[in-house]
């Protein structure tokens, strides 16, 4: 979601966000219920076709789906040990298809569209919930992930430079302090950008 959007004008890109979310939920549930390897292959084929229709190149697709394969390398043999290779293979297949579907949503939907989707979902509850604030909360959460990751990376580097690699305290304290300072600065910038309008 954090900058993974792959621009395009395909039907997958143009499908309304809430409809995409609904189809994703239905799709993931359906894949979880599939009992036959043949059915799973059909599902995999459908997702593959959707990637082609959306014009997603292999690299960004692999960046999303690839990491799950490393988990499967460990989980599948364990599952096979207790439940057999067929069950383990089905589990792995279901997981790959589900992750591929979720990644397709991420690759074809902007954060703004997701926020607007959230706001539309919350519209009936506007008397009790400020949809704009919830949308902003989600956006800021997504924005802060790379920011905190950057802080952690800098602190780790500083920790190495000072020869205090083993100390958890030397990591936690500066990360928390710098994150709080960053949160304060972002709050100030939000006010300056008219958030309290």
């Amino acid at each position: 979601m954090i900058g993974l959007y792959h621009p395009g004008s395909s039907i997958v890109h143009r499908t309304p966000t809430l409809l995409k979310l609904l189809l994703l939920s239905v799709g993931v549930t359906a894949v979880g219920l599939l009992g036959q390897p043949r059915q799973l292959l059909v599902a995999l084929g459908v997702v593959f076709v959707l990637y082609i229709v959306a014009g997603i190149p292999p690299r960004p697709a692999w960046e999303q789906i690839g990491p799950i394969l490393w988990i499967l390398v460990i989980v599948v043999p364990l599952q096979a040990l207790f439940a057999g290779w067929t069950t383990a293979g089905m589990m792995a297949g279901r997981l790959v298809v589900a992750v591929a579907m979720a990644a397709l949503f991420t690759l074809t939907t902007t954060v703004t569209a997701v926020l607007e989707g959230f706001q539309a979902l919350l519209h009936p509850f506007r008397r009790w919930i400020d949809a704009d604030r919830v949308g902003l909360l989600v956006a800021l959460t997504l924005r802060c992930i790379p920011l905190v990751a950057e802080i952690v990376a800098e602190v780790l580097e500083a920790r190495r430079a000072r020869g205090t690699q083993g100390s958890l305290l030397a990591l936690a304290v500066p990360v928390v302090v710098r994150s709080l300072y960053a949160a304060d600065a972002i709050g100030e910038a939000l006010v300056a950008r008219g958030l309290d309008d």
Partner: protein
Amino acid sequence: MTRITFDGVSHSYGDRNVLRDIRLDLSEHRIGVVGANGSGKSTLVRMINGLITPTRGTVTVDGLNVARNAREVRRQVGFIFTNPDNQIVMPTVQEDVAFTLRRRGLSREQVAERTAAALDRFGLSAHADHPAHRLSGGQKQLLALAAVLVAEPKIVVADEPTTLLDARNARRITDLLREMSQQVIVVTHQLDLLAGFDRVVVIEEGEVAFDGAPDSALDAYRELLA
């Protein structure tokens, strides 16, 4: 240009006085504010769009008391921070610029049109859908400028906008600030940034130590530092 006044403005953080009885009447096009670290210059410019409210005295922008009309004043005053990372709110470049406009009640088409124009002006069109956090430092500061200027403020306040940048990017941001049609107020330690400015205010230990033409002001500032 808009008239900004500081009338007997003081500010303290706890028992530490950072500004004392500041009296200024600013209406020039390009105004520089210089001073040593901790002199109170950042606190001073933050008062222009109500990020900080004076402990004593009044700040007005175009006749409006900032403390009482902060929302209205902020629509006229754009603020650029030292670290653009703290100013970027949305995950992608385009969305961050659009964020400013989405809160102004414009239609989706108007937001898209003005966002595209702002990205084009600052050479960021090619990065529109890129993650904002992956931009270089200079590009991030350009994004911060685009996100502020897309709202068409009458005044742009920049608090040390080139401090974290390399020489080339600092020059680019400096040129952009200098060429703006808006009234510009820049806090800086980089004195060459103030070439061609109309007025420079030197702040020292919370007071106005010098106020006048850039050449004389910068001489006075260098003397203070010596």
